[in-house]
């Protein structure tokens, strides 16, 4: 399912953070969104999933206008959002986190939900032996895997992820991006906000660069990887690719 964003504006109260964002993710594409702290990346994802209302512009899923829908309707429509800082339900078990991930599909036959769960666990086999453990006891990397798996339980066609690699050891970053690559190969559309530009370029099909609430550059990953404007800002030695983005667009 394709995602098409045109002129999207959104913000918090009177503070507008996004000033007309355009973004395209074709079916089965992985789009990385990179940008400095405060560029509006997190707000973009929050506007896509309905956590923050759009004040202008449109969001289309497979051509259908879903602008202004709340998170519940968007989840049903096939968009899942893996939030910043994972936000797993800490005292619930890993299994219950997954069960709640399928909340919008609760009227589906149990067999169908089990099939989806088994596929998510096959993607992240580390979760399997921890199913009965409280999610809060997992390591950061495992919590990220759980957050993604929980998103997949909603059987999305478009998955948007907020900094899936933040705070993780390089080996885990590789593991997570390999999983995202496999999901893309299965036909899922992905939009990943990333601070870790190297990891993003390695696996993304196309890259959008955000700056102060706008997409200022967009192109396929291979081309942009050698673009001097991008390398200067994100791939050069000066900028710490590991820096966290906790303050992004929020206050």
């Amino acid at each position, binding site marked *: 399912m394709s995602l098409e964003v045109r002129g999207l504006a959104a913000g918090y109260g009177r503070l507008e953070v996004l000033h007309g964002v355009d973004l395209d993710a074709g079916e089965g594409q992985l789009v990385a969104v990179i940008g400095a702290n405060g560029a509006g990346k997190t707000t973009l994802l929050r506007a896509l*999933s309905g*956590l923050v209302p759009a004040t202008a512009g449109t969001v289309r899923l497979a051509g259908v206008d879903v602008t202004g829908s*709340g*998170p*519940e309707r968007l*989840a*049903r429509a096939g968009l*899942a*959002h893996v*939030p910043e800082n994972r*936000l*797993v*339900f*800490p*005292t*619930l078990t890993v299994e*219950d986190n997954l*069960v*709640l*991930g399928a*909340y*919008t599909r*609760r009227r589906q036959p149990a067999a169908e939900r089990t099939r989806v769960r088994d596929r998510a666990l096959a993607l992240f086999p580390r979760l399997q032996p921890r199913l009965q453990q409280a999610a*809060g006891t997992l390591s950061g990397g495992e919590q990220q895997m759980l957050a993604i798996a*929980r*998103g997949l*339980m*909603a059987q999305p066609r478009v998955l948007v992820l907020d900094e899936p690699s933040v705070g993780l050891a390089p080996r885990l970053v590789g593991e997570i991006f390999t999983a995202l690559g496999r999901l893309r190969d299965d036909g899922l559309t992905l939009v990943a906000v990333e601070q870790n530009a190297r990891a993003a370029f390695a696996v993304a099909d196309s890259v959008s660069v955000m700056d102060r609430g706008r997409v200022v550059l967009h192109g396929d990953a291979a081309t942009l990887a050698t673009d001097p404007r991008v390398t200067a800002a994100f791939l050069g030695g000066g900028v710490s690719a590991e820096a966290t983005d906790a303050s992004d667009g929020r206050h």
Partner: protein
Amino acid sequence: MVDLLQLVFAGLSQGAVYALIAIGFVAVFTVSGVINLAQGEFAALAGLVAISAAGSGLPLPAAAVVAVASVAVVAVLMERLAIAPVKRMTTLVSLILTLGVSTGLKALMLLVYGPNAEGLTPITPGGVTVGGVSIRYQELWILAVAGLVALAVYWFYERTLAGKALRACAEQPVAARLVGISLGRASLTAFLIAGCVGAVAGVLASPVYFTSWESGLTLGLKGFVAATLGGLVSVRGAVLGGLLLGVLENLTAGYVSTGLRDAVAFLLLIIVLVARPSGVFGRHAEARV
């Protein structure tokens, strides 16, 4: 020794009533951050409705059902009319709002049922003396029914999808919205639970402790103290807090002075808030609801 047993037993049955009211505080607070000062009025109203329904000739079980159902409706209406419309609910705003609802409910009860305290007919009248400890059958009913209700609430939060969804809202509201759980419906469910447990407490307590338009004040405060003893986030903590408070009150009344009975709750509250704000039982983070 017999004195001690007598006081502990009386304390447990009284504590079971506090425990149910405390569960109501916890159910609402975890999901919406609201401290519901009308929680005690749920109990008082249920007692009064049950008394008047029984007085008009309904059999006791039917009167109890009518009472619980009416209070459930009141709790749901309260959530829709006074809580849901507030855009940015903070705990302070919730205190002011629910104090208003509590005052309104009290005025209504005074108007409809008059100023006198009355007691509902006990489910089983009379009592029995076991080894010198005199036990009213109604106290046994309180312990049994309150225990069952507490277990049912616990089972709901631990085992059912709807219960887990409420816990998800309490722990990570943003993530709960992202998986498609409606926070509005969660808050409504929480008030429904609070109304039901408060009403059961009120109906159970009425034959022993009597009910009037203003008994909600004491019951609510005791329930709040019990919930706070348990950290305000856990059903188990609320139950243990209620039982502990009931026993301590009765021991104080028996061994020190009857006049100090009500002071115990507030003394405990101050000690807990100063020394262990996260509750006496377990850490804050674990065992939410």
